[in-house]
């Protein structure tokens, strides 16, 4: 991964973190890795444990940000989520997968699109 795109990704995660905290989410973990996957942000939203995937676009996005999350990406997120739950001994908690996409309009304005319950484990 080039340094540039890493920077863009990291920047996006910061924006998303700020946004979620503002919305009352409690961030519990960042950049959690499992062998086969990665989760950008893990947060508590009330009783829910939310796994958040952040997409930061340096250009104006065409189409739904969900389209940028392919099946393999989904599977890696799910795998990481399962690992997280297992490692931390979390049971009996309702979980959710959210996607936050960040892009800029032509006038430079930043738009944050938060999709709750974006996909399912099965």
């Amino acid at each position, binding site marked *: 991964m080039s340094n540039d795109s890493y920077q863009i990704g990291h920047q996006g995660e910061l924006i998303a973190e700020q946004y979620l905290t503002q919305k009352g989410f409690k961030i519990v973990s960042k950049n959690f890795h499992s062998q086969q996957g990665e989760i950008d942000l893990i947060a508590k939203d009330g009783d*829910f444990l939310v796994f958040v995937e952040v997409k930061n676009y340096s250009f104006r996005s065409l189409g739904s940000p969900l389209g940028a999350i392919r099946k393999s990406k989904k599977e890696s997120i799910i795998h990481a989520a399962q690992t997280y*739950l297992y490692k931390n001994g979390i049971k009996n908690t309702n*979980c959710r997968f959210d996607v936050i996409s960040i892009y800029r309009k032509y006038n430079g304005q930043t738009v944050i699109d938060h999709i709750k*319950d974006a996909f399912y484990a099965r």
Partner: protein
Amino acid sequence: MLVKLGSSALAGLEGYLVEVEVDSLKGLPGQTIVGLPDAAVRESRDRVRFAITNSGYEFPAGYFTINLAPGNVRKEGPMYDLPIALGMLASSEQASTKLFKETIFLGELALNGEIRPISGVLPICFSAKAEGVKRAIVSWENADEAALVQGLEVIPVKTLKEAVEYLNDKLSIPPYKVDLAALFSDNQEFDLDFADVKGQQHVKRALEIAAAGSHNVLLVGPPGSGKTMLAKRLPTILPPLSLNEALEVTKLYSVTGVLSGKAALITRRPFRSPHHTTSDIGIIGGGRIPRPGEVSLAHLGVLFLDEFPEFEREVLEVLRQPLEDGKVTVSRALATITYPAEFMLVAAMNPCPCGNYLDPMKACTCPPYKVQRYWGKLSGPLLDRIDLHVEVPRLKKEELADQPLGENSKAVRERVNAARKIQEKRLIGTTCHSNARLTPRLLREFCKLNPDAEQLLKAAILHLKMSGRAYDRILKVARTIADLAASDAIEAPHVAEAIQYRSFDRKEV
């Protein structure tokens, strides 16, 4: 919370109860449907999700497992959408489970939460009632059909929201009722009438006999002689269906999914005229899970096969078994299903490919081998099963110019009805409906011949070299002719008339 609710599935014309169990675990979100669902059932996950959110309810969080019991039978069709959605809502305490006992839920969901009709509601509700179900919650478009089951409380719902509010006592929906008697009021107004057909008195007589005893008929005549016209008017002289018969026919149409919303109960005898390109499966029934074919859709009515020799040979030959047994059993890997098929076969054909063979006015241009091949399509065993062979000659000039004359359908129908009543009275306590379906034992019991009639028949059989089945069939036709004459005994004239309807057994064509 574990929630159980009832639904149903179809195996042929019988429904059986399916229990929909819904439970959830807290954890990663998702749903699975188990219990051998087919593709349509598995897809219900997506429909249910949107139907729930678009109805203003919350799609419950957690990992859901939906079990369709019994788990060893394959479930097909979208009718489980409604019970699955209600189960998920009840499991997340958005709907009350108070009425879940003794209720079945049937319906497909649209993405906007509307409830769509499903096919096979009538047989499902019948079986459910027999198994002790008290209430059925169905799409309002299915309500007419479901309400035909007496003693079942039918709650018609338009949307998922209505169903939930009904369960939660927020909305009261009165049970849907249909007036069976009104539906069944003798509605025998037809657009067609026998009086439309000019001449052909002897053909009309033959059709009257056929209608009176539910006998099979073969009409042979040159083009334009009125074969099709006559056959299409046959339903107008058939006796009306009884209530039980009407329900039996309606069940078959319900399973096939061809019942229109308005005509919940089929009160007229079906008249099916499949095109001659229809396949054998289309005629007999079939599919992965067998559906009724044309022979079953013509149950208790008429199966009219125009241009008889143009049908594929296999198609004609598969007719033999249902003609004899009055039912068809179709076996496939997934299911073996028996459908009733007590139909009256009316076949129409030209005497040769050009149509003018046997015509005194026009010359036939077919070489003899072509005529032979044409008739070769009708195998001996098939011809044997057709009781009445009738020639429909071309009308003469004088007859064509004449005004249509002769009786109207109503007059003929009254005679047919009278003859059928005699048969019904005679056949009380048996499984037969008509003379054509008499079993060999009943045949011996009811078709006793006068001595001179017996002598005549014996001579005819010997002389015309007829088969044993033809003998039986002549007896049955003679019985019907005697019934039409309101005669208890079968006399020589009755037998004589019956014998002359076997003309193609003896004709060297």
